[in-house]
């Protein structure tokens, strides 16, 4: 993996710039080049401008500020010689064959032997790109197609030509996999590769059929969002995100390069509405709006959506369809059979899209699993097309197509006869191949997936909220599987169970799940319910239980490793804080966010953070320093926006591991757990030197300034005051009399109970539950 030491990205557009940013995230020095701007004094202006923009992008393109320093802005007129010591040169310029090839000749003159050149093209084929180029170039050339935004989209489509060196492919594949965290899907050299080929078909179909069926954009998005597991966007919302102009370009290029009998040609149509919208600046979210827009002017504000027939904007309405209700209750199966326009819409779009996908294997990719991964990771579909077919029933789909008098693709017919595209045989997931046989779904070397383990056996213990799995080599995995993996009393029961089971013949515990998030924290609904009936003892008991169980994990005789990914908030963050070590996916968003709902961390979060910051030798000395830092971090409910940021804020220790590839999280956490098990000794409790009332007064001063600046509300002040009381060690604390961990836990509980009884805090909790957003009151 050490072969790629320096990378160059040529083309500082949206994709090129963001690819460079992600290379910076990976810690690789990267040159970002573009052409000379017209009549500009600063010859690097384009690349520099792109970098500046990337620093402000939302969601952030950079994982930490430091990453931006690794990127050097340059231009192709003055700095081509910089390419001489570059290991991987990524071309991400305009989608024009001639321009690209002109650039390749320039690159070829300066690049060193053994370097690799790749194109980020989404529409051009490799064969055309290397046609007429020297042999050396063709051998070192491949297509690496990133998805936008490259930091967050895990798919990398990789196309190698017939003469591409296998070791060049391996170097890039390994680098993308290990260092950039990509799932690399090998594609054949066909137009649009996998994801865009099927994705564009689906989008075209989704728009055209919505118009034909007379669905509003809200209805279409609700239905499609539900069926594909893309609830936030659906089809029209996704187009707004991608950009309507880009959609038209992609369509034009497919119309040109796909053969006349490709089904895409039959479903695609010119869309005058889209052209009109683009002309008026409605290119999507990057423009004035798209199918949706935010009405900012006038007396009322709110969302508007376009009427697909008139082309006028009108206020959005909540879609009401029987099929939608049925789908929500009974799933895709029921939705697609429903006779109303929603059901018909899903059937038409899905049957065409899935049939199209089935007809494209093995033309575009070696196997159906590759196609499924591409659609999941490139288009965020919850399930890939072949998984969807299996959910509907391959037999059902084939039969219904037949009933409709439509052609059934060969692969689908075969799979239908065999019983579907996937099956579990001897505890192993297998997929159906064009040869008519099933093969094991391939996994990367060493990868351990809980989903595979689950297929092979039964849990050691389970309840409605969590399970314990034997993941081999003496390691037990605690899996939380509530909604958003929130923590509830059943999770506590399972931790208690783990505390029994692990010492009875196992070495360590790993806390891990394969959902989107590690844990969004305590189940607030339960807390609110208890508060509404003034069941204060119940709440206090829940606090006690959480503190005791987390303490028990921390001081247990075996090591506990947390495997973080996605959100780890509030009580979820506190669970991580009590682990002996954390292995974090780089996209971990860790934070103590209790103040946002008018509370303070009370499952040991304040205590653990005080311990960490107090013992961190890099932080300034003195009793106030850790307290002041935490007052800010917890008081402002700051959530780290990457695992690197989590280290800066102290949620992760300097020794905690950060990895880029999500698929390796469990195996890495397990490895760590095995290492720690050798001669493990639980940590010693420490006493904390805290400033007491003097520190509270100091924080009070800071708070007063915030109030004056109107940056804090009256209730913010109350919450921050309670937090200050905990962090400073309470009224009896004094710098010469260190405070015990138990005392800080007691203060946490007292502050929490005081706050949870206030109207303003309850209003915050209710608002969070209803809207998912914090209330400022």
């Amino acid at each position, binding site marked *: 993996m050490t072969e790629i030491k320096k990378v160059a990205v040529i083309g500082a557009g949206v994709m090129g710039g963001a690819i460079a940013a992600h290379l910076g995230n990976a810690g690789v020095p990267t040159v970002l080049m573009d052409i000379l701007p017209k009549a500009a004094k600063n010859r690097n202006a384009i690349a520099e401008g792109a970098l500046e923009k990337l620093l402000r992008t939302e969601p952030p393109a950079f994982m930490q500020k430091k990453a931006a320093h690794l990127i050097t802005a340059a231009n192709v007129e003055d700095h081509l010689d910089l390419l001489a010591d570059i290991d991987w040169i990524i071309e991400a310029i305009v989608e024009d064959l001639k321009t690209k090839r002109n650039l390749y000749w320039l690159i070829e003159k300066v690049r060193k032997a053994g370097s690799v050149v790749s194109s980020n093209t989404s529409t051009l084929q490799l064969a055309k790109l290397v046609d007429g180029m020297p042999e050396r170039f063709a051998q070192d050339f491949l297509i690496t197609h990133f998805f936008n935004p490259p930091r967050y989209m895990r798919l990398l489509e990789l196309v190698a030509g017939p003469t591409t060196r296998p070791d060049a492919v391996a170097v890039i594949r390994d680098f993308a996999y290990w260092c950039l965290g990509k799932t690399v899907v090998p594609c054949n050299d066909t137009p649009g590769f996998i994801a865009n080929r099927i994705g564009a078909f689906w989008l075209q179909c989704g728009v055209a059929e919505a118009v034909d069926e007379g669905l509003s954009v809200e209805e279409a998005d609700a239905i499609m969002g539900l069926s594909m597991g893309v609830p936030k966007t659906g089809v029209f919302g996704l187009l707004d995100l991608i950009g309507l102009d880009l959609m038209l370009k992609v369509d034009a290029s497919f119309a040109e390069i796909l053969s006349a009998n490709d089904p895409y040609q039959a479903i695609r149509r010119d869309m005058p509405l889209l052209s009109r919208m683009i002309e008026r600046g409605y290119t999507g979210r990057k423009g004035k709006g798209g199918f949706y827009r935010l009405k900012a002017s006038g007396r009322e504000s709110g969302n508007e959506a376009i009427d697909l027939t008139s082309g006028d904007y009108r206020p959005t309405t909540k879609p009401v369809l029987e099929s939608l209700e049925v789908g929500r209750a009974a799933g895709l199966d029921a939705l697609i059979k429903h006779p109303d326009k929603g059901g018909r819409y899903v059937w038409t779009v899905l049957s065409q899209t899935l049939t199209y996908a089935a007809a494209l294997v093995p033309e575009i990719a070696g196997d159906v699993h590759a196609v499924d991964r591409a659609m999941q990771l490139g288009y965020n579909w919850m399930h890939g097309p072949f998984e969807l077919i299996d959910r509907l029933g391959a037999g059902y789909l084939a039969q219904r197509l037949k009933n409709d008098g439509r052609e059934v693709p060969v692969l689908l017919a075969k799979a239908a006869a065999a019983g579907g595209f996937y099956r579990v045989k001897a505890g192993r997931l297998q997929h159906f191949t064009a040869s008519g046989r099933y093969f094991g779904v391939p996994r990367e070397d060493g990868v351990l997936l809980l989903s595979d383990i689950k297929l092979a056996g039964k849990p050691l213990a389970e309840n409605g909220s969590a399970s314990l799995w034997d993941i081999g080599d003496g390691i037990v995995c605690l899996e939380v599987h509530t909604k958003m993996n929130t923590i509830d009393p059943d999770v506590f029961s399972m931790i208690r169970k783990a505390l029994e089971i692990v010492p009875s013949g196992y070495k360590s515990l790993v806390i891990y799940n394969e959902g989107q998030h590690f844990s969004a924290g305590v189940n607030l609904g339960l807390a609110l319910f208890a508060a509404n009936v003034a069941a204060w003892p119940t709440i206090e008991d829940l606090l006690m239980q959480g503190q005791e169980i987390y303490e028990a994990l921390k001081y247990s005789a075996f090591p506990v490793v947390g495997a973080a990914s996605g959100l780890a908030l509030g009580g979820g963050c506190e669970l991580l804080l009590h682990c002996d070590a954390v292995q974090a996916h780089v996209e971990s968003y860790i934070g103590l966010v209790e103040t946002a709902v008018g509370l303070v961390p009370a499952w040991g979060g304040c205590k653990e953070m005080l311990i960490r910051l107090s013992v961190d030798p890099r932080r*300034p*000395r*003195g*009793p*106030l*320093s850790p307290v002041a830092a935490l007052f800010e971090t917890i008081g402002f409910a700051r959530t780290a926006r990457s695992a690197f940021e989590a280290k800066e804020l102290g949620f992760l220790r300097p020794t905690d591991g950060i990895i880029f590839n999500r698929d390796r999280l469990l195996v890495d956490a397990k490895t760590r757990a095995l290492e720690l098990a050798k001669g493990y000794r639980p940590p010693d409790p420490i006493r904390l030197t805290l*400033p*007491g*009332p*003097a*520190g*509270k*007064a*100091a924080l*009070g*001063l800071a708070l*007063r*300034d915030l109030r*004056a*600046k*109107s940056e804090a509300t009256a209730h913010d002040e109350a919450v921050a005051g309670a937090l200050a009381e905990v962090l400073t060690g309470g009224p009896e604390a004094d*710098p010469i009399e260190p405070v015990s961990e138990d005392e800080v836990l007691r203060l946490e509980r007292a502050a929490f109970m005081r706050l949870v009884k206030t109207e303003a805090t309850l209003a915050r909790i209710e608002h969070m539950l209803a809207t998912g957003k914090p209330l400022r009151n």
Partner: protein
Amino acid sequence: MKSVVIAGYVRSPFTPANKGQLAKVRPDELAAQVVKGLVKKTGVKPDDIEDVVLGCAFPEGEQGLNVARLVVFLAELPLSVTGTTVNRFCGSSMQAIHIATGAIQMEAGEAFVCAGVESMTRVPMPGFNLLPHPRLYESYPDAYISMGFTAENLARHYQIPREAQDNFALASHRKAAASEAAGNFSSETIAIAHRGETVDKDGCIRPTTSREALAKLEPAFDKKGTVTAGTSAPLTDGAAAVLVCSEDYAKRKGLEILARIRSIAVAGCPPAMMGIGPVNATRKALARASLTLDTIDIIELNEAFAAQTLACVEELSIPLEKLNLEGGALALGHPLGASGARITGKAASLLKKNAAKYALATMCIGGGQGIATVLEAV
């Protein structure tokens, strides 16, 4: 009583905290280079120096311990020269001058280096471990009031509108920019060497700022208030030093005398109105010199805030054409511990340069104090 004079003034460039060119320079090193520069420029014989009196408002971290003594070592002064660190917040290095003045008049030494330093980058306000007395904080919170609010209080009490504050800040930048362009600062500035590079230019002055740009700024402390970042002295890194000696000594050694120290004073005021501190301090100092303000030709009043300066201007009836001729702290910056030496040295230099008779240097101090020094031509 012995006549005490100022026989030399230097300072480092003043640069913005955190982003300026001195951000990476340790304050003890910064002060030492300035003290060394003063010794070299004045020609004072190092063995004759009785004491280095160094002002610093947050004497901890890199400007902690007894930083004055460490500056003696860093500046390679003889070991016989002592060092003492003085804290009167913003008035620290003017206080250093007052201490030397008193000592000389007690015949407890003939030559003193009176300096000041603050790295507001490396030791940010309010220091690393603020631990207020909890009972005092409860019973008399004004004891710990933050400076922005005191400026708002004065703006309200003296009804100083936002526009007047903006205009005053703009004028300060204009004067400073003109002085810089005319090269007026080059004779007083000691270039600071750091890792092979030299810092010799001020960094806070904004020659291109405009009424419009200032008017656009949001209030910095009180959302409903009038005081902005543009009408507050910027957080600054810098050091300054003056040579204070007996007139006899200066004449005997042939040193260039800038001004005689005629009188000194400090005065307290309510902490919530700390910016008005210069008024009573000035009145006391003038009375001790048997002078009235209209006889003063040159006035250096430290511009902590535009509102604060304008309040003093009103109370003392200061003619603006005598005030801060080469720009004030709003433009140049205000490295807390260093500003007292700067404005006293500046007033002495201007007195000499303009061949004037009397000068006044005065400043407000957090916690509710003022300090003033009256100078006269020799």
